[in-house]
């Protein structure tokens, strides 16, 4: 059923269609509408879930961990400072190998106090063992949450579905809400590993000596390795049953491209708009590589697409201070042992919610095409210097 809805409500619909069973949540701008609609679903019985009001994001994740451990499908959502407060429990969820799905509405970290988007909040959690999916449209948000449970419950790692504050969270657009019967077919009820059994009690989360913890950490990496094929399978299954597919990355109009933009989030969408216009004008040497799955980082897949290009312009709505754009670092690292690699241009833009316009994208393309090499390690787009 088609509907005009916001990115935030797309999250709530995703959780509802996935039949989440426990939702612990704490409201924070710009995520609040997600919690509002979910609590409404729970109150009206549209979603048969236990809705837990807790006192902080730290407790949100603690409650989700308990719920997931006990065998419930647990969902939550947060943003910016809330995600940061959750950090300790973020590690816990992943190390506990719990298939929790959480939406994070990207919000710039304070100070300067901000409610607008950039990716530094979610990217600060990149090494916690969570799978991360970055979305460019409300449709992708709903679908990614459903896919997120499919992946999480297969590899036993939690999934973070990420959307831009306001640009997506508060923007209404047309989305096609999947038929819940089809979602049920795609995503059967969660059957937890029988770790919690009152008749056969085991100790959970206790002290692990150096004799064994090394092996346990290895297992997380092993699960991450497994995640790439599993995510591809989950996406194929989604296409088969629900008719849409995203890939873990997407090469857009790269067939004849010698310059490729690397994008994530809503910048991808605006870039498509620019590239479509260029191609319509007959200029077909520019394409886009959208990175949807950032963790695990699909290095092989990224290299396969980008190695055909001469120049790669990585557009980062984030910054690893002292290094540069975080996506750019990952892309460069993916080429680490390759003999040949394209010239990398690292553009930083849109931080703190600064609007990213088609003009900005065009400027990035122009700069990349007119320079053999970047003049600076980081090219700040739209900075008033």
């Amino acid at each position: 059923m088609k509907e005009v809805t916001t990115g935030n409500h797309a999250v709530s619909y995703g959780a509802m269609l996935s039949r989440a069973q426990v939702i612990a949540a704490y409201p924070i701008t710009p995520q609040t509408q997600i919690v509002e609609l979910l609590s409404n679903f729970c109150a009206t019985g549209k979603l048969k879930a236990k809705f837990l009001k807790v006192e902080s994001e730290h407790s949100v994740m603690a409650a989700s961990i308990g719920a997931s451990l006990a065998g419930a499908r647990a969902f939550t959502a947060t943003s910016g400072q809330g995600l940061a407060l959750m950090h300790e429990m973020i590690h816990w969820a992943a190390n506990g190998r719990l298939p929790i799905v959480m939406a994070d509405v990207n919000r710039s970290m304070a100070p300067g106090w901000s409610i607008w988007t950039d990716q530094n909040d979610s990217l600060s959690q990149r090494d916690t063992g969570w799978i991360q999916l970055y979305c460019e449209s409300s449709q992708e948000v709903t679908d990614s949450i459903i896919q997120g449970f499919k992946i999480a419950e297969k590899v036993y790692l939690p999934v973070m579905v990420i959307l831009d504050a306001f640009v997506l969270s508060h923007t209404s657009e047309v989305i096609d809400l999947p038929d819940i019967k089809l979602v049920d077919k795609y995503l059967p009820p969660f059957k937890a590993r029988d770790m919690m059994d009152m008749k056969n009690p085991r100790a959970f989360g206790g002290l692990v000596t150096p004799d064994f913890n090394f092996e346990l950490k290895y297992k997380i990496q092993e699960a991450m390795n497994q995640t790439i094929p599993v995510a591809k399978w989950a996406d194929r299954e989604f296409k088969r049953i629900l008719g849409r597919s995203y890939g873990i990355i997407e090469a857009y109009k790269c067939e004849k491209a010698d310059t490729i933009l690397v994008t994530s989030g809503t910048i991808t969408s605006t870039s498509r708009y620019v590239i479509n216009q260029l191609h319509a004008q007959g200029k077909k040497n520019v394409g886009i590589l959208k990175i949807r799955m950032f963790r695990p980082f699909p290095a092989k897949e990224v290299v396969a697409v980008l190695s055909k290009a001469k120049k790669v312009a990585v557009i980062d709505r984030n910054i690893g201070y002292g290094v540069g754009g975080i996506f750019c670092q990952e892309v460069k690292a993916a080429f680490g042992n390759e003999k040949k690699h394209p010239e990398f241009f690292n553009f930083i833009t849109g931080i703190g919610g600064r609007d990213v316009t088609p003009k900005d994208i065009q400027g990035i393309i122009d700069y990349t095409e007119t320079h053999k090499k970047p003049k600076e390690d980081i090219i700040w787009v739209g900075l008033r210097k």
Partner: protein
Amino acid sequence: MQSKIKVIPTTLKVKDLPPTAISMSNMLFNKTGSWRNYKPVYDEKLPPCNATCPSGEKIQGYLYLVKNNKFAEAWQLIKQDNPLPAVCGRVCFHPCEVECNRNDYDESVGIHNVERLIGDYGLRHNLRVKIGIKKKQQIAIIGGGPAGISAAYHLARMGYKPTIFEAERQLGGMLQYGIPSYRLPKNILQKEINSIIKMGVKVKTGMRVGKNLFIEELAKKYHAVLIATGAYKERNLDIPGEEARGVIGALDFLHEANLPRRQAGSGKKPTISKDVVIIGGGNAAMDAARSALRMGAHPKVIYRRTRNEMPAIPDEIRDTEEEKIDFIFLAAPVKVITKNNKTVALECIRMKLGSADSSGRRKPIPVKGSNFRIKTGTIIKAIGESPETSFIPASLLKDNLVCTDKWGMTAQNNIFAAGDAVTGPKTVVEAIGAGKRSAQAIDKYVRTGKVTHTEIPEVKPVRFEQLNTAYFEHAPRVSMPHLEFKQRVKSTKEVYLGYKPNEAITESDRCFSCGVCNFCDNCWVFCPDMAVIKKKNKYEFNYDYCKGCGICASECPHNVISLVEEKK
């Protein structure tokens, strides 16, 4: 024998290990109970309300039942200790509320308001208490006031058929003739008394000791006799003019004022002047002033100390003030001014407070030359009462009171005494408690020939600091609906209107349940070793796994769990 902790070989490889930090197998072998130094035990303690109640009501118990909408069960529980809950819910000075730990948090639980509703519920639904196996011993009770009624009730519960000898026409004593109906409607009192009579209590009215009733004769005829004659002899002012017309005692006044018209000796209500003056600061003074107000007078109360030293219960003082009755503090009467043996004024002298006297209150000292007069046609004396003992054998007396041991037995074995006759003037609930204790003693005596003195160890009630108040929400006391001033003075209708059931439930839910488990599940929830086992109506510890961390004890809001040192 505890099995040994399994050592996991460090040769295990990735594939042999569990997916996350979880034990390799069932952990039941690991009996963590062996680590324990202290052991938690469920150790219910005495709530302060219960400890302080003169009749020993299990207050926490009935609040818990009311909270769970079990009014009939609450009535049964209260009736184990108190035969007159509807009465006490109205007139008791509720020391339980003074001791209530909730005072240290916000406001005490409105115990007497709930008690009143429970009592009324029992009357409305005609509830009955269970009566024990029939006993044939005959017991005489002299005096049908609160102590006598209480003793009769408790004896009747045990299966006796005691006889009450009452001097007046009606049972109730001070309840009947002393307490005005705007505080205690007569029909409530009557219903509660009737329900006790129906239990097999015989009543003989118009029987006055020394006139047509003699203690020694009764002691021969009956297996046991209880003296419960109360304290109704009024103290005199000992000032000139006291014998004049227009000077009356408060009890006489209240007695007359309280009689229904057709019963009153004169056939009329007592006549008082509009400018009536009441002397005294006790409950009788308050009752007299408020009754006079309702008869159309503008009463003035004269008290020789200040408001702070008034012996009347605070609620009564507050209600009297609300009815805009004038108080003249620090003044004492010195002379009644008469004209043709009729009172026309009261001469008083100003007082000031000196150092504390034996009662702990500051002693009033007259201020020389400060005499003043108050014009009045009626003076009501309310300066205290004492027992009438002239008809009691001198061998049973000491200091003008009946002398008994702790169980109420006098110097003569089968004669017992209880209430104000023993203690001097006290409160209704203390008389009820005394009646209960003497009923228990009489029961033992008539069955065994002696009263065994089992010393009950003194138990310290739970203090506020011993509770874990983190689990209690602040909540205001449910206010008691009452008549406004204008409605009050027009009639003798009851001032307080009583809780509705839902209000009683809300109020009961404020109870901290000090020292008594109310199944809040905290111990069960918090135990990190799942060593608390939930059973029907109780919890148990599984000492195999309880490692004695004490979290249950610290998280119990009610101080029910105690930690005792483990014997090694």
